[in-house]
Each structure stands twice: as C-alpha cells, then as structure tokens.
C-alpha cells in the first residue's frame, strides 16, 4: 500500500478522496454500498443558518455527459444538523466537513460559529458559489471584494480549517483565489457547478423550475482541470479539486494539475461505490508506477 496521506493546511486526510457536498447526503445514504471509513473525508450537504425548502421541482435535467441541478440548498438548517444529524455521524471514522452557505455575511458567520463548536468537524467548506439561490450564493463568489468580505468575516469567527469553494462562473478564478487566500483561507476548493440551462423544445419551456441550474458531471472536467492548474500557479494554499471526476484516472489528473485532494460529486449517482474505488485506483497507480507517496503527484504535471 502506497502512502495516501495528504494535508490541507493542518488537516491531515488519510487519503485525498472526499465526496462533494450535495452529492453524498450525510454519507449514511451510501453506507450500504461502501465502507465510509475508507474515505479521506465526506463533505455534507450545503447547510444554512435557517431551514430552507429549496426550489420547486423539476430540479434536475440530464445533459450530454452531465446534469443540471437546481436544488437550491434545501436543508433543515444548522441547528437541526447539530441536534439530529451530527450525533448519528460523529462516530464514523472519517472526517466530516460541513459545506456552509448563506444569504448574507452574517448568516455565514453565525453558521460557521455553530459548526466550530462541533468537536468532530475539523473544517468547513465555505460555499460562495451556489448558482441555485437568489440571494447570496454565487454572487459572493464572482467578485473579489464580496468573496474577500465573507471570508474575512468567517475567518474571524472560525478557528479551524477553512476551505473556500470557488465558482467557475468567472473571468479569472485565480483573482478570486488570491483574494480569499489573502483573507486567511486555509485552502480553496474548485469548482462548484457551471451555470447552465435546458429547454424542452417540444413544450417550448425551460426544463428546470428555476430556468437555469448548475452543470456538473464528466462534461465539466476539462474546465475544472484548467482552473485547478491555473489556481495552482496563483496561490500557495492547498487546492481541493473537483468537477467531473468519474474514476481514479480523472482524480490523478487533478492531483497532477495541482490539487492536494479531490472530491467526487455526480459520479456517486452513477456508481455509489466510486469514491472507494477511486481510493483503490490511486493506490494501484502509485504502486504500478513505484511512487511512494501520493504527495509526489500533487502539481506533478511535466511541461
């Protein structure tokens, strides 16, 4: 077995494979299929200060090699998470990270503070990139100023590992990455979904209730990989790479492009065992190529 350990700031993961927020529930939904403790981490569903019903249905549309979603951060709120979900998942032997969303800086801060109190949650992923909500969400992640302002406020309130999840719907993702690095983010994760749209030509109507939605899946991989590579050359903090990772080869590509860890999203829907298979696949690749530690792959692209 090769050494799969990676670090995201002070956070040491048993391996670089995490599951992406919104695609893996609270992990429990997948417990019948895989051994959750084999994952590097599980990033739970976007959590907000208050309960949110999310968007009306239809919320999903299939696209070529991908899908659009318009869930809109449906969740029962951070207090419900703390009281009802956290007690159930806290004994599972992997890291749970909470994906934190908000409609205002104050919301983000209040939610992060509550999560900070939870012993077994070593990090949050600050979602400033959700394209499916009217206020907040992506708006925070598409300008340096607003991204900086929310990260500054949360940084002041949240002492543990702070990962900021960036939006790909920007002209230059490295600017935003630098802005949040300057405010003390411990890492960035990218990419969230790309804003897209689907139309039913026969009915002459949008497919999604919200007209536009977030594109994810294999189709976005080339864009995500490019953004990880650009960001790797722009910031010093670690990068968590995601977007269209469907198998171990894809995951290795992200590591080579500069990611210190990766997240598996939409692929969980097609193969609920894929996250564990990716852990195995990375190990196999390392052994086959006589690479002692996965850390040697990080940013290891040869030009």
């Amino acid at each position, binding site marked *: 077995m090769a050494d799969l350990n990676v670090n995201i700031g002070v956070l040491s993961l048993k391996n670089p494979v995490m599951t992406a927020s*919104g*695609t*893996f*529930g609270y992990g429990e*939904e*997948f417990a*019948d*299929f895989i051994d959750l403790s084999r994952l590097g981490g599980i990033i739970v*569903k976007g959590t907000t200060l208050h309960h949110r*019903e*999310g968007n*009306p*249905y*239809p*919320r*999903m*549309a*299939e*696209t*070529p*090699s*991908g*899908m659009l*979603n318009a*869930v809109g951060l*449906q969740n029962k709120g951070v207090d419900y998470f703390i009281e009802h979900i956290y007690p159930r998942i806290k004994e599972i032997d992997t890291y749970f990270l909470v994906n934190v969303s908000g409609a205002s800086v104050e919301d983000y801060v209040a939610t992060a503070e509550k999560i900070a109190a939870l012993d077994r949650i070593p990090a949050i992923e600050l979602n400033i990139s959700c394209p499916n909500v009217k206020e907040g969400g992506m708006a925070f992640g598409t300008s340096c100023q607003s991204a900086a302002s929310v990260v500054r406020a949360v940084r002041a309130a949240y002492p543990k590992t702070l990962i900021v999840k960036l939006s790909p719907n920007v002209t230059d993702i490295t600017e935003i990455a630098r802005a949040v690095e300057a405010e003390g983010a411990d890492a960035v994760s990218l990419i969230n979904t790309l804003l897209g749209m689907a139309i039913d030509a026969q009915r002459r109507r949008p497919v999604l209730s919200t007209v536009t939605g977030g594109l994810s*899946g*294999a189709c976005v991989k080339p864009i995500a990989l490019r953004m990880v590579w650009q960001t790797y050359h722009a910031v010093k903090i670690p990068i968590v790479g995601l977007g269209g990772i469907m198998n171990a080869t894809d995951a290795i590509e992200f590591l080579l492009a500069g990611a210190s860890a990766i997240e598996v999203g*939409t692929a*969980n*829907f*097609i*193969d*609920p*065992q894929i996250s564990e298979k990716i852990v195995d696949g990375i190990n196999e690749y390392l052994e086959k190529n006589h690479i002692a530690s996965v850390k040697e792959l990080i940013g290891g692209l040869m030009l």
Partner: protein
Amino acid sequence: MKKYILDFRVSENVQLHDNYALLKLTPADGCPLPEMLPGQFVEVRVDRSPSTFLRRPISINFVDYPHNELWLLIRKAGEGTRTLCGLQAGEILNLVLPLGNTFTLPESAQERILLVGGGVGIAPMLYWGKYLKGKGYTPRFLLGFRSDKDLLQYDQFRQFGEVYVSTEDGSLGEKGFVTQHSILNEPFDRLYVCGPKPMMVAVARYARERQLFCEVSLENTMACGVGACLCCVEDTVEGHVCVCKEGPIFNIEKLKWQI
C-alpha cells in the same frame, strides 16, 4: 432495508409490443435475490447508450422468488429505455436496489381493494397484487390503456384477482378513462394507483370525494435514487420530500395536489 449494487443477467427479454419489453433478470452471480417490497424500484445503469448519463429508475414489476427472477416492465420513452428494451438474453445489467418505500397494507382482509394502473404504470401493481393475495387479501385490478394493442400482462394479473380493463378507444373492456369504468360504482375501501399524472389526479379526486384511503406511486426526475441529491422532491404537507426515498408511494392526503 439494505441496498445493493448487483449485476443481473437477462434471462429473457419478452417483447410485449413495439413499445414495451419485459426483462426477466437473475443475479449474475447466482445468489438469491435480496428482499424487495411492492412499490419499490431499481436504478438501472444503461450501458452502451451515449446519451444516457444517469441511471434510470424502473419499478419492480414482479419478483419470482422460485425462479430467482426480477421482472422489469419497460416502455420506450427515450434512448435509455429503448436501449434497455433491446437487451438480449445473456447480457448484463447493473442495478441499484431495492429503492424507495412500499405500499401500506390494508388493515383487514375484508377491505375492498382496487389496484389501478395506467399504461406502464401497471408495472408495480403486479407484484403488489401478488403480495396482497399472498397475505390473504383480495385485490382487484383496474387497468387502463390507450387501446387493446397496449394491453399488458393481463394473464399475469388474472392470477391474483379480478381484472377490469378500460381503453380510451373502447377496443377492449370499457371505453374511456379508468375513472369512467363502471367498477368504480361499487364501493371500495382502498385504492392504489400508478399511471400518468392526470389519471392519478382523477383517481385521487374520486377517492377524496368518497374519503377513501388512496396511495399513488409518483415519478420525478432522479439522479441518485437514494435520497442524497434532493433532485426528486415532491411538495407535501411536510415540505419538500424525496420521491426516491420518502416515496415513490404517497398517501394522497400528504400531497399538495389541486384536486
């Protein structure tokens, strides 16, 4: 209930009509089928179909434990289901199963129960009918089709109870929609319904007027099938709930349908 990802082998593909196929599947490793309840569904990975990225939800049509066979009744709706309908005996199909909830059992064997299916919506009713009969209930079936050419699984249903048929063009059974069928003049205690939304709404209206217990099997656009992605919500009195997990079977009293 434990969920599985399993490879199945197609033991038979019965081409029922141009537009429907019945796939009989058996676990590729020969192990016995897991426990499955009526109303549950499976998520099928459609291989070799470039435009089918996600799995497809398909109801459990029948579980033949003696032959260790799971039946799926599939209507050609698009490329994914067309590919499934074209599978040949011996081919392998990967399923995630069993998913979703189940129908509610009647309280007493005396209850008068009608299982209503429309089109491919008859699919879950066959296993549910068998299950009810096996538990000592007396299900009856009301099946609606466009025309006699669309009739599906009539003989199978007959094994488990009386079958009434409506066709829109009158070519078989009574003419019209299921809600116009004369059997609905008789008193019932419970209705279970699966079919196109307008049909389910019509039956739900009938049930509500008479204050009958009524459960419907809903569809929705699904990605994960296990309650993780929240893509498949139905608006209910308890808020947005996942059709794949809290459903697909819902009591009409829980729904916010305008009926």
